[in-house]
């Protein structure tokens, strides 16, 4: 439509802006949107389309999670710690999207520092699920999923450290792609757990997600862990979908705790793919049950280290120094009044400034993870927790290697339930963590995964997500399987029961 001139890029942007202005107060997906800049850029890109010089993403309108740096705009991580922080450079992924002539229309809400599975840990307040605003959108990229589901942008960027792209995609009924570790540069992605963090894409279709992946993937000298593996033309590979694939069904992903309606739906999708020519094979991933425990040891350890940089000195929130000094004086007076001459336990003003700044800047979940990470790394506990978890991480990776020697992709549910009610899990952090059971192992193993919508739940009406996983750098196989599943889900007359 853009090529024929029926619709112009400024029309498109204006349409999204009015949708945001109308619906964002209820959904709270966008933290801010850039009306003037986006419209101005839309005119510029329209001219490029007309004179034939437009890039591959011309006409694509995106939202970007608050975890990414975009020069000249706030990058808050939805934290009071970074409430007044403004990025001084572009994340590599942002730079690549803009170089392809995409329009970044605004910034998206998230769980603070990407820690959460419900998008309730945000200084901007919770994001609400567009399908039912009393339910969560999932997290931590809840804003990114909700914005696409609510039609506020074509596609969006999120980050996935333990499922933070795939789980909200599942809850909101959109496609969420987590590429292999190292497939996409992390430069300019504010770090949570660096050995797990992956940049991911949300879209309405598998094709949309593949277009974004092609634009952002590839080696970047600013991220030493980014891979030199060549980047295939992912969208072009989808022109011809291969049905003759081998799909692994891991017994462990269909056990206790899984909603039976979701289990049946995932199996139905697998059977429909079998009818198209796919081969279904039973596989075992025996160490799945240790994945959550291993992940929360390793990820909180990395978080406690990464978040040590927030000290209130070079950037971020700094506590009021006068109040800090007054408090220290009072503590000193208290100690000397007791007759104790030993003031060695008293913080220096500098140390107390760090502590006070961090305490005021971080929310409860971030503090909890910093504390857990500090604990598992501390003297005497290191080997029992951190060392142990690293060894189990290897076992989990080996399970997948063995599985992928027999199958092209693995099918499973994305989450054990559909989107839950706001507030229903906030007081029980462990229950919240257990929600990541099916997504977390892909991050432990560094492989790729995707969640695609497979109709709605028969009793609560909320979207159900099906997850596919493929070996590291096997995004072509992953996208092929996801596209095939998307086709079989779309073939049924009633979309709610594929």
């Amino acid at each position, binding site marked *: 439509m853009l090529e024929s001139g029926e619709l112009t890029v400024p029309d498109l942007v204006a349409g999204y802006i009015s949708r945001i202005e109308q619906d964002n107060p209820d959904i709270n997906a966008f933290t801010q949107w850039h009306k003037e800049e986006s419209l101005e850029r839309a005119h510029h890109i329209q001219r490029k389309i007309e004179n034939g010089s437009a890039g591959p993403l011309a006409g694509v309108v995106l939202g970007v999670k608050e975890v990414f740096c975009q020069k000249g705009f706030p990058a808050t991580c939805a934290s009071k710690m970074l409430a007044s922080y403004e990025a001084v450079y572009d994340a590599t992924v942002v730079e690549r999207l803009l170089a392809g002539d995409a329009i970044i229309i605004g910034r998206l809400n998230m769980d603070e520092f990407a820690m959460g599975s419900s998008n309730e840990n945000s200084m901007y307040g919770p994001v609400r699920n567009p399908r039912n605003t009393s339910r969560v959108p999932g997290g931590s990229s809840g804003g990114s999923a909700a914005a696409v589901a609510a039609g506020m942008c074509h596609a969006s960027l999120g980050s996935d450290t333990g499922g933070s792209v795939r789980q909200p995609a599942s809850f909101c009924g959109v496609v969420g792609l987590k590429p292999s570790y190292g497939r996409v540069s992390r430069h300019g992605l504010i770090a949570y757990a660096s050995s797990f963090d992956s940049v991911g894409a949300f879209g309405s279709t598998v094709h949309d997600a593949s277009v974004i992946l092609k634009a952002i993937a590839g080696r970047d000298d600013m991220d030493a862990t980014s891979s030199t593996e060549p980047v295939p033309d992912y969208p072009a590979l989808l022109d011809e979908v291969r049905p003759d694939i081998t799909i692994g069904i891991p017994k462990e992903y269909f056990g206790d705790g899984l909603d039976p309606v979701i289990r049946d739906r995932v199996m139905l999708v697998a059977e429909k793919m079998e009818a198209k020519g796919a081969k279904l094979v039973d596989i075992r991933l025996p160490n799945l049950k240790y994945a959550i425990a291993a992940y929360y040891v390793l990820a909180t350890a990395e978080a406690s280290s990464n978040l040590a940089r927030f000290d209130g000195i070079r950037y*971020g929130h700094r506590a009021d120094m006068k109040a800090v000094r007054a408090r220290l004086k009072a503590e000193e007076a208290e100690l000397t009044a007791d007759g104790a001459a030993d003031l060695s336990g008293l913080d220096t003003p500098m140390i107390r400034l760090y502590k006070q700044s961090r305490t005021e800047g971080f929310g409860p979940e971030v503090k909890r993870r910093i504390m857990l990470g500090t604990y598992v790394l501390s003297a005497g506990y290191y080997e029992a927790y951190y060392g142990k978890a690293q060894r189990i991480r290897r076992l989990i990776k080996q399970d997948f290697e063995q599985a992928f020697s027999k199958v092209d992709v693995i099918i499973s549910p994305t989450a054990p339930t559909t989107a839950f009610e706001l507030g229903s899990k906030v007081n029980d952090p462990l229950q919240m963590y257990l929600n990541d059971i099916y997504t977390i192992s892909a991050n432990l193993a560094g492989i790729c995964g995707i969640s695609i919508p497979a109709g709605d739940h028969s009793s609560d009406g909320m979207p159900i997500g099906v997850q596919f996983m493929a070996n590291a750098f096997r995004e072509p196989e992953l996208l092929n399987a996801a596209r095939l599943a998307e086709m079989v889900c779309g073939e049924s007359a009633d979309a709610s029961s594929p």
Partner: protein
Amino acid sequence: MSVTIDDVKYMANLARLQLSEDEAASLVRDMNDILGYMELLEQVDTSDIPPLEHVSDTGAGFRPDKAHPPLDHEEALKNAPDADSDYFRVPRVID
């Protein structure tokens, strides 16, 4: 193994956090819950399994040692809570 209020206060100092009594008490509860769940890991015999440090085995690789323009002063200091034209300003360290 169970976490006490003193453990929490000790960890808070290492993590440079200043917890209120309420926060410390609720962290005792949460950390015991979560660390208790992590005891699951003890079921696995990992004596012959080396720790996994990097998921990719390709190594970091080399790149040319080429200088790029750094952030200028103004940009680098732009987000500082307190700065003059050249430096970050911090509280006096030595009285």
